């Protein structure tokens, strides 16, 4: 990469970019290719997890059991949770990071391209193992819930081979995440273009740095927990088996020491997307850049000390400590909300599809945050824990939050990745359907939880207040379903009948918008020294550049 004072002249393909052959696609170590592989594979898992959710919603639409067997239902919620968390949301973040980080920091590729491809293959292989774990028929699929609490997940109570496949799959995902994290950190710390100081990094990249650190700290203990569980199951160990002197609470500690930072691994990248989208469509610089970065770091730090708020009802942890830490984490999250609002304040806001999804994110995530504060209180959690209130809460953060941000990101960067725009009008319909459908699905689940409906119930007795909210919730699912179908149609149409995007369809801020769409293999022909956190804007408006 050379540095000159010229405006970058990226090769501008006249025709649609050359299509990679399937073998090339699956083996190229180019970060953009791997990023797209990650995102497409992860989205495929979203469709699988979503289909499982649909079956569960149909089952719960009416009180008695109708559609699936109890065993099948238990497997479905196990696989649904695992797939959405470990195979969709987290890898989608890694995929975007792969695609965007080198572009945003002005680098030609990730630091370790082959490690990068390896981590993709670990993830894809792990995904297959986890899907297999649900259908493995000898002794039944994995049906112990995605947190696999012992002793239920021990051999005595879950003899099927499904649990073993599940353990191997999750361990591989963990290893893949560690590889991805190492790669992201090395790339950001060592490969930034001249002038791209840490305090000028685009917020998406900053958030991925914190996410990568969280992964490096949280995944190894989880691998240890899963290894011990495997030893218990197959090699006669007793680490978590009370009959052999083991301790089920130890498993919970190790699991949630992964599980809670994981929650932030599932949200920080998507806070990053929102923070990229809002300034662009408000035509303003970010409000309080430094505060936002510090808030991200604070969230990362605090998230290492909140794990036992999943264990308030176990009676074996210091509830007030974990309650205080969990309440505190609302403060940096609030800072982010005010920074986003401050960015829109006095802007010139245009309501493109990415911006609509970003607004949906703000409206949904706030509810997720406020209910999170309620759940951080141990006595309130004595009622709410393991109820649908919790289910609704985390879907408001992960689905209403992260997934809405994912859609914002797809509509925002699809033109960069493919050189073609997605359809604006169709996209607006998708956004409205998903927003309405999402709220119809999950708002009633708050009501269900307050009334005492526990999660992971295949059916419920009629006439004790569970019927109507469940029916509405199932209806909402189908509204979302229509939205996702339309979205897939949008992608298909847009790829076939291309509307060329040009280098910078949105008036972007970060460096990916100064190169062609899609970018050439080496990303940039030349770069100006970077002077602020929005170098692309500085090039368009030299009169305003610092």
């Amino acid at each position: 990469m050379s540095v000159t004072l010229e405006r970058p002249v990226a090769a501008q393909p006249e025709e649609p970019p050359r299509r990679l052959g399937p073998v090339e696609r699956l083996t190229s170590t180019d970060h953009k290719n791997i990023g797209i592989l990650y995102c497409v594979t992860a989205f495929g898992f979203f469709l699988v997890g979503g289909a499982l959710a649909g079956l569960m919603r149909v089952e719960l639409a009416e009180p008695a059991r109708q559609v699936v067997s109890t065993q099948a239902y238990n497997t479905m919620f196990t696989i649904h949770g695992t797939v959405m968390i470990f195979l969709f949301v987290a890898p989608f973040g890694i995929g975007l990071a792969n695609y965007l980080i080198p572009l945003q920091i002005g680098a030609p590729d990730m630091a370790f391209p082959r490690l990068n491809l390896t981590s993709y293959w670990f993830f894809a292989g792990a995904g297959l193992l986890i899907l297999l774990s649900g259908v493995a028929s000898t002794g039944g699929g994995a049906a112990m819930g995605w947190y696999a609490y012992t002793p239920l997940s021990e051999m005595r109570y879950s003899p099927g081979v499904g649990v073993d496949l599940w353990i191997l799959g999750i361990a591989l995902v963990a290893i893949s995440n560690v590889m991805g994290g190492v790669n992201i950190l090395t790339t950001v710390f060592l490969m930034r273009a001249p002038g791209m100081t840490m305090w000028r990094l685009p917020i998406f990249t900053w958030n991925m740095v914190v996410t990568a650190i969280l992964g490096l700290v949280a995944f190894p203990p989880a691998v240890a927990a899963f290894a011990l569980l495997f030893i218990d199951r197959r090699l006669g160990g007793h680490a978590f088996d009370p009959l052999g002197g083991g301790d089920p609470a130890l498993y919970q500690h190790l699991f949630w020491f992964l599980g809670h930072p994981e929650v932030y691994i599932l949200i920080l990248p998507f806070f990053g997307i929102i923070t990229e989208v809002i300034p662009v469509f408000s035509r303003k610089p970010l409000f309080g850049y430094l505060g936002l970065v510090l808030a991200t770091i604070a969230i990362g730090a605090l998230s290492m000390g909140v794990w036992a708020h999943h264990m308030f009802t176990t009676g074996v942890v210091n509830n007030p400590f974990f309650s205080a830490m969990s309440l505190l984490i609302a403060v940096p999250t609030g800072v982010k909300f005010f920074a986003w609002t401050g960015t829109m304040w006095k802007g010139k806001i245009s309501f493109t599809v990415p911006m609509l999804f970003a607004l949906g994110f703000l409206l949904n995530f706030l509810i997720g945050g406020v209910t999170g504060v309620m759940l951080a209180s141990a006595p309130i959690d004595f009622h709410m824990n393991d109820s649908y209130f919790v289910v609704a809460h985390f879907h408001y953060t992960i689905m209403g939050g992260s997934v809405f941000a994912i859609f914002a990101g797809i509509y925002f960067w699809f033109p960069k990745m493919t050189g073609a725009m997605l359809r604006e009008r169709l996209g607006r319909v998708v956004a409205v359907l998903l927003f309405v459908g999402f709220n119809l699905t999950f708002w009633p689940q708050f009501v269900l939880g307050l009334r005492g409906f526990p999660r992971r119930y295949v059916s419920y007795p009629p006439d004790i207040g569970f019927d109507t909210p469940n029916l509405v919730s199932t209806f909402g699912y189908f509204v979302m379903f229509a939205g996702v179908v339309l979205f897939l149609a949008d992608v298909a149409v847009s790829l076939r009948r291309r509307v060329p995007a040009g280098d910078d369809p949105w008036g972007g801020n970060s460096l990916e918008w100064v190169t062609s769409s899609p970018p050439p293999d080496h990303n940039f022909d030349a770069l100006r020294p970077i002077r602020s956190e929005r170098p692309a804007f500085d090039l368009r408006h030299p009169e305003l550049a610092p």
Partner: protein
Amino acid sequence: MRRAGRRAAPATLVLLGTACSGSFGMPRGATEQGADIFRLWQIFFIAAIPVAGVVYGLILWSVIRYRRRRSDDPDALGSQFRGNHRLELAYMGIPILIVIGLFAASAAVEVRVDAVSSDPDVTVNVEAFQWGWGFTYPGEGVTIVSPPSGEFVAGPQMVLPLGQTTRIVLTANDVIHAFWVPDFLYKHDAIPGRTFVFDLTPTRTGTFYGECAEFCGLNHAYMTFSVRVVPPAEFATWLVLLRAGQAAA
């Protein structure tokens, strides 16, 4: 502006009054401990209303007020300021004060809910197993156990005297379960190898639905039970009759 404020004040008071007596979807708690948790829920909910209101208000106001209009130049920029230190300190500081207040309220309630009487009026040993419950009244020599089932049936019923302190001694003998009576706003995990003790002081008569709240395998959803709260005299009669019945059997 000022006149609107004067008119809004009584309306706000009425709203607040309604809010303070509102249950916000939560059962009111049929035990002393549950009522305490219910009041804490009210505090959290009422605190959430202005916070969410302010944030939603600011977002919607910014979006509507600063939308790009048709008449605007499509390339027009918003104002290019990058922050405001005073505002930033305020929106960091105020939430800290709010969560300190919430924490104090929550910690105080937890101390009361966790308190166990040294001299309870009744003790019930609750044993959770796949997939049912055993309720034993140790001093009285009576036991009520779940019938085995993979369907919703009337589960075992625990009977408690109104207004008296009951000590629950909770154990599990296979996997982890959780004892949850939604109307008491309380649940506790039952972990094999450990014994947990907590108190319930019922304040209302009636029959309350109970369930297992920690996923425990195949028939988890059918692991239901009920708690019937009766006046103390009726409780004593019930015990005598049950003891006689169990002795005869």
